């Protein structure tokens, strides 16, 4: 939520509010994360990420000012929620609350003779600073109170009602309402509407948005101001269903205090009378307000015991005072939070308040004692590790693939996309796709003969199981299936030896089995035998450009090491050479033949034959220039 520093400052005596950066730091470590600070029309605007449990009382300038006041131990000049309210003058509006509608309390104010015009500059400036667009003085007054006190209110043109009679009821299924701004939405019978009761026409969606039927316009003279308490959950579900999350609904769904209603309406009335004139005819109330917060009993020792820091009685009491908690202390503290706070209902929530105001950074770290309980070995994890270790040592590389696929036995009710709306029923399908993808890069990967990958992961059919799958691809088409089968069978034999159990059959290019099914037959493990972890590497992003493969075969005199040729290759290729892999070596008539795969790739562009050709020419040139050396 965006809050204006200037607006916050208006709650404090001159010079009492610490600087923007001090406020930012204090809030960060004791209350809320700060998303950022920006300057808008010369005013600092702080974007505060109010935590969900504080949305009831802190989605407002007053709420943040109160928080700052507690954290800096600096009193507010005047707190609008601590003054006497007076909404007792009875007016001529009639309110009828529908039995099923989720509205527990409704207060209406009736003002006649207002002049609808632009708001005064100070009000416009405050709204604009936090990104709100001024509309007219009457509407702006309700918006202002929303951001000042966190209390949504709504204003109707009273003369557009048939009689001065407001109702609430559930919407009819399929009932339509045109909202302020002109969008029409269709309602269902779980949603609450406000009606012009005499005509039964819906004039607003409760807690969410007003309709255009009784919209205030430049000719409006008589207005009806509404503040009502709507059920938080129903408001949230309605806003979700209509995809209409508004500043109002965001506050209702967070269960703000019932008692805010009267403060909100009185404040709106006060501002409208000041900036739009008119005469207050009176208020009408229907329904009940809840009883507010209950006392919470907290054992003093428990506070320090949960937080792990010794906090003195004086400091605890000081924190309660700063937070304006009422408290008494006998054997235990009895603590009651001010009415607008909705998040202090159990001892642990009181302890949280003490902890955060005290400062979590003052809690000194402690190491755990030795455990009381003998920790056993998790057999499934232990065997996953044994399998991973065995396969890795055989040069099989582990991949992690997606569980969401285009087909399977378990379908999601809601999905990202039609190709990701099922849970995988096996690992093989993913492994096969991965073989194809990686198969295209075999030379680049230095895997000139064979590509071996595996995955251990969960699959979903009748039940969820953890499976293991190995997949193999080989270079060239000659006797391909045979070669794949030989490699897979060899891998399988190694796994069988490591596990001490027979496994199922190789199927084409993959071999998959269910770990859960053999787990019982595997012997117990005394302790984990962890495989290697990643060494001291320096990670570099891979190039997204295609690679170029070239081979080179050479004759050199006997005694020449392959590294000498490799050095020549490297010296002419620079950064573009990704790999040089020896694939053939034999000696004949006092000469050695070395053959290499050279793989070129650029980080910046697609390499052309011309560029690679020039490099090859230089390499070949240098080799051919040496006594007894020759490129074949």
């Amino acid at each position, binding site marked *: 939520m965006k809050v204006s520093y200037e607006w916050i400052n208006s709650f404090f005596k001159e010079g009492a509010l610490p600087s923007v950066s001090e406020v930012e730091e204090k809030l*960060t*470590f004791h*209350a*809320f*994360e700060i998303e950022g600070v920006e300057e808008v029309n010369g005013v600092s605007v702080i974007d505060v990420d109010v*935590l*969900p449990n*504080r949305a009831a009382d802190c989605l407002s300038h007053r709420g943040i000012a109160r928080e700052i006041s507690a954290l800096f131990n600096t009193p507010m000049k005047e707190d609008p929620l601590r003054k006497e309210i007076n909404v007792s003058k009875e007016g001529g509006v009639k309110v009828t609350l529908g039995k099923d509608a989720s509205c527990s309390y409704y207060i209406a104010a009736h003002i006649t003779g207002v002049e609808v015009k632009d708001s005064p500059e100070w009000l416009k400036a405050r709204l604009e600073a936090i990104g709100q667009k001024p509309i007219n003085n009457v509407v702006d007054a309700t918006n202002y109170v929303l951001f000042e006190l966190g209390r949504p209110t709504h204003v109707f043109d009273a003369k557009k009602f048939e009689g001065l009679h407001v109702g609430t009821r559930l919407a009819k299924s399929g009932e339509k309402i045109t909202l302020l701004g002109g969008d029409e939405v269709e309602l269902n019978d779980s949603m609450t509407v406000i009606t012009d009761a005499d005509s039964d026409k819906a004039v607003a969606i409760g807690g969410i948005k007003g309709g255009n039927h009784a919209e205030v316009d430049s000719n409006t003279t008589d207005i009806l101001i509404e503040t009502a308490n709507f059920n*938080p*959950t129903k408001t*949230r579900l309605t806003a979700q269903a209509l995809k209409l999350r508004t500043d109002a609904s965001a506050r209702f769904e*967070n269960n703000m205090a019932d008692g805010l209603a009267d403060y909100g309406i009185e404040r709106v009335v006060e501002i409208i009378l000041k900036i739009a004139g008119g005469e207050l005819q009176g208020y009408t109330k229907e329904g009940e307000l809840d009883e507010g917060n209950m006392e919470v009993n907290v054992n003093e020792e428990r506070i320090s015991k*949960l937080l*792990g*820091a010794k906090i003195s009685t004086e400091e605890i009491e000081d924190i309660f005072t700063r937070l304006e908690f009422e408290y008494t202390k006998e054997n235990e503290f009895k603590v009651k939070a001010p009415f607008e706070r909705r998040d202090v209902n159990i001892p*642990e929530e009181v302890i949280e308040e003490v*902890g955060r105001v005290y400062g*979590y950074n003052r*809690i000194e*770290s*402690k*190491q*755990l004692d030795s*455990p009381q*309980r003998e*920790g*056993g070995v*998790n057999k499934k994890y232990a065997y996953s*590790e044994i399998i991973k270790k065995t396969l*890795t*040592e055989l*040069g099989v*590389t*582990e991949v*992690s693939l*997606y*569980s969401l696929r285009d087909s399977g036995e*378990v379908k999601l*009710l*809601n*999905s*990202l996309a039609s190709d*990701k709306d099922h*849970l995988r029923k096996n690992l093989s399908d993913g492994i096969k796709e*991965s073989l194809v*993808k*990686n198969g295209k*890069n075999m030379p680049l990967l230095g895997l000139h003969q064979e590509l071996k990958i595996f995955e251990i992961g*969960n699959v979903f059919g009748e039940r*969820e199981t953890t499976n293991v799958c190995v997949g193999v691809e080989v270079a060239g088409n000659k006797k391909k299936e045979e070669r794949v089968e030989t490699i897979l069978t060899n891998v399988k034999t190694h796994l069988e030896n490591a596990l001490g159990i027979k496994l199922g059959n190789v199927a084409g290019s993959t071999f998959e089995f269910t770990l859960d099914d053999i787990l019982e037959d595997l012997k117990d493990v005394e302790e984990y035998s*962890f495989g*290697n*972890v*990643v060494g001291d*590497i320096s*990670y*570099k992003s*891979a190039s997204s450009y295609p690679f170029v493969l070239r081979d080179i075969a050479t004759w050199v005199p006997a005694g020449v090491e392959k590294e000498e040729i*490799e050095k020549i290759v*490297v010296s002419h290729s620079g950064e573009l050479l990704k790999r040089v892999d020896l694939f053939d070596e034999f000696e004949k008539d006092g000469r050695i033949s070395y053959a290499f795969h050279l793989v070129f790739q650029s980080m910046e562009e697609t390499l052309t034959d011309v560029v690679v050709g020039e490099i090859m020419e230089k390499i070949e040139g240098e080799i051919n220039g040496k006594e007894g050396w020759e490129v074949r």
Partner: protein
Amino acid sequence: MGISYVILFSMQKSYINPLTSAIREIVEIFSEMGFEVAQGPELETEHYNFDALNVAKDHPARDMQDTFWVDENHVLRTHDTAVTARKLKENDGAMRFVSCGKAYRNEATDMTHEAQFFQVDAFAIGKDITLAHLKGTLETFFEKFLGGSVEIRFRPGFFPFVEPGVEVDMKLIGDDVPKRLKGKWIEILGAGMLHPNVLKTAGIDPEEYQGWAFGGGIERLCMLKWGIDDIRLFHGGDLKFIQQFSV
């Protein structure tokens, strides 16, 4: 050229999936501190994913995580904390568990968001386990996992299954620390003291036992550790990526 020369010619290397490597280290470090390894299903009941963790049906916190639903009562677990709920239910008394597993969120993917990801969740309960022990445990963990010397900082946070809830930042200092991490505060985990409702639901008396829990993304830990910039690389199965991670 000297260094890449060495890399170019060491052909017979073994490559470790970075997630496996990170999980190995996490399990090793926490095992030494007396934590047992826990696992649980990815297709989880609504009960263990939400209700048992104090996220009631109509709680707005359910909106915080975009959930994949399988049927009316089953979800793809949105956090590995579901395993914590199971272990609390299965066991009595003092216990410590660590679990590393896959979780899912129904959200658009980008460089820092994935629909599937791995999480590490750990918890310790006993008669006098406090927020101070959480700080100490995390210091030990990060010092061993990332090297160097670690400072841990808590800020207020909100997660329905803990009370108090904290956001955890860490800062690495020392000579061995990679430059990109050195001396910077990094937001790394969510944590807190297990909510009494969570303990009660599991049949544990919150007057007698208390403890902490934390959870965080393993890909994110890997990204910090190795300087990886895109979370999507972890599950693409591309060996060009995995071959960067050699023993």
